[in-house]
C-alpha cells in the first residue's frame, strides 16, 4: 500500500467506535454457481460512517491526503471539493463536522482506515451488517424492511449528522438512509447495465461466470447497491458516497 506514516492503532478508540457483527450467512443478489449462500466470518464495523470532522483530523495528520496534495491517480478534482479549503470544513451543509464525509475516493478511504489500523469492509461484510433491522439479524427478505430502504433510494437525501437514526440489531447506524459506502472489493461487483429486461450479465463481456441472474427480483434496494458498486471506479468521488471502516475478528 502507499507508504504512510501509520499511526499506532488506538485500541480503545477502535473498540468503542466499532460494533461486533457476528458470523453469518449472506445471500448475494447476483450469486454465481455455488455462491447462493456466502459464509461471513465475525468482524467489527464502525457504528457510524466516517464524518467530516474525523476525516479532517486524518488529513491534518497526513498532509499527502490534503486536497491539492494528492496525486490525480488517487484523487481527482472532485476530492473533498465540498470543503472550504484543504484543511477547513467551512460552512456548507455538506461540510458539517458531524455529517458523513463525502467526495472521497476508494484510495483515500483505504488510507484513512489503514491509518487507524483498520480497513474497509468487504461487500459480504457490509451486506451482512446491512441485512439487520433494529430487531432482526436478517431482515433482508422482509418486504417492509426492503420497501423502507427502497423508499430512501428513490428520494433525494439530505445529509444529516451520523448516529441519529435508529441503530440496527448490532448497534450500527446509517447503513441505509444516509450515503452509499465504499467497500474494499467493490470491483467484485460485476453487473453490466444494459438494456436487457431481466438484468442478466452479458456473458461475452466477462468470463467464468456463465449466466448470473438476480436471485430475488423484488429486492430493488440490493440491486441498486450492486448497480452503484458496479458503476464505480476507484478514483471516483461523489456527493453521495462515503465510507466506514472495519476490522477482522473481535479484538482489535
Amino acid at each position, binding site marked *: 500500500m*502507499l507508504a504512510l*506514516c501509520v499511526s499506532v492503532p488506538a485500541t480503545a478508540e477502535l473498540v468503542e467506535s466499532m460494533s461486533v457483527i457476528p458470523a453469518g450467512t449472506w445471500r448475494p443478489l447476483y450469486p454465481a454457481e455455488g455462491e447462493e449462500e456466502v459464509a461471513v466470518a465475525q468482524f467489527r464495523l464502525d457504528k457510524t460512517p466516517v464524518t467530516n470532522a474525523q476525516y479532517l483530523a486524518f488529513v491534518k495528520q497526513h498532509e499527502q491526503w490534503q486536497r491539492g496534495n494528492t496525486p490525480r491517480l488517487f484523487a*481527482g478534482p472532485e476530492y473533498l471539493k465540498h470543503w472550504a479549503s484543504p484543511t477547513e470544513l467551512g460552512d456548507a451543509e455538506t461540510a458539517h463536522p458531524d455529517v458523513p464525509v463525502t467526495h472521497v475516493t476508494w484510495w483515500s478511504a483505504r488510507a484513512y482506515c489503514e491509518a487507524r489500523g483498520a480497513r474497509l469492509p468487504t461487500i459480504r461484510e457490509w451486506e451482512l451488517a446491512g441485512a439487520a433491522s433494529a430487531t432482526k439479524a436478517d431482515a433482508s427478505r422482509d418486504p417492509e424492511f426492503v420497501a423502507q430502504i427502497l423508499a430512501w433510494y428513490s428520494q433525494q437525501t439530505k445529509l444529516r449528522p451520523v448516529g441519529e437514526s435508529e441503530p440496527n440489531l448490532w448497534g450500527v447506524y446509517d447503513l441505509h438512509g444516509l450515503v452509499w459506502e465504499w467497500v474494499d472489493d467493490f470491483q467484485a461487483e460485476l453487473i453490466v447495465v444494459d438494456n436487457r429486461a431481466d438484468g442478466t450479465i452479458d456473458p461475452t463481456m466477462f*468470463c467464468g461466470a456463465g449466466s448470473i441472474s438476480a436471485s430475488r427480483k423484488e429486492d430493488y434496494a440490493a440491486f441498486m447497491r450492486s448497480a452503484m458498486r458496479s458503476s464505480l*471506479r*476507484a478514483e471516483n468521488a*461523489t456527493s453521495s458516497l462515503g465510507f466506514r471502516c472495519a476490522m477482522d475478528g473481535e479484538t482489535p
Partner: protein
Amino acid sequence: MTYRLLLVLLLLAAACDKSTTLATSTEAEGAHAEHDEHAHHAGHGDHAEHAGHDEHADHQHEILAAAEASEGSLYQLDITLEDHKGNEFAWASQAGEPVLVAIIYTSCTTACPMIVSEMMTLRKNAGSDVKTLLISMDAKRDDVAALAAMHERHQLDDRWTVARTSPDNLRMLAAALGVRYRELPSGEFSHSQVITLLNPDGEIDTRMEGIGPQRHHMAEALKAL
C-alpha cells in the same frame, strides 16, 4: 417492469456525479515542473521505501524520477511482483518504455486465452514489439510454475512477462486499471476483459474494455509507438 428498472438506473446514473475517468490520451502534463513535493510523498512515503528495490537502484531512481513527475502515473503504486522465472521486480521499474498490460489467470479457459490472443494480434498487426505484461488475479493457485507453463503454452517470447503478486497488490492494480474481478466458489474468476497500454511514464495511454469494438483505438496506439 423493464421501463421502471431502466428509469431507476438512469436516475441512479444521473445522481452519481462521477469524477473524470482515467485519461485515454497522452496529455502533456504541464504540471510536471510545478509538481509538489507532497505528491511524491503520497506514493512513496518516507524514502526508506526505496531500500526495498532491487540492485538496479541507480537506474531505477532515474526512471522513478521521471515517473514521479506524473500525477497520473500508475507507477506511484509501490508494488512488487514475481515473474514467470521466479524473479521479483518492482512494478515501477517498467517505467521508461510503454507497457501493454492485462490481468488474467492461468487456468481460465474462456476469455483469458482470448485476451492473450487479442494482444498477440494487436501487436502483430501494428508491427509492435511492445513490452507486454500479464498479471494473474489468482494469487492462490497461480504460482511461478503455473506462470511459466502459461508462458510456454502460448509460446511467448522475452518481451512477454507473466507475473503474480499479493492479493492486496492485485486489488490496487486492478483498481488503477479499472479491472473488475471476482473469485467464484469453483476457483474460477468472473472478470472484465481489459487491455491497457501504459506510456513510458506509467500513465494510461489507451484502454480497451471488451474485445472487438475498441480494437481500432488500441491498434492505432500501438502503431504510433
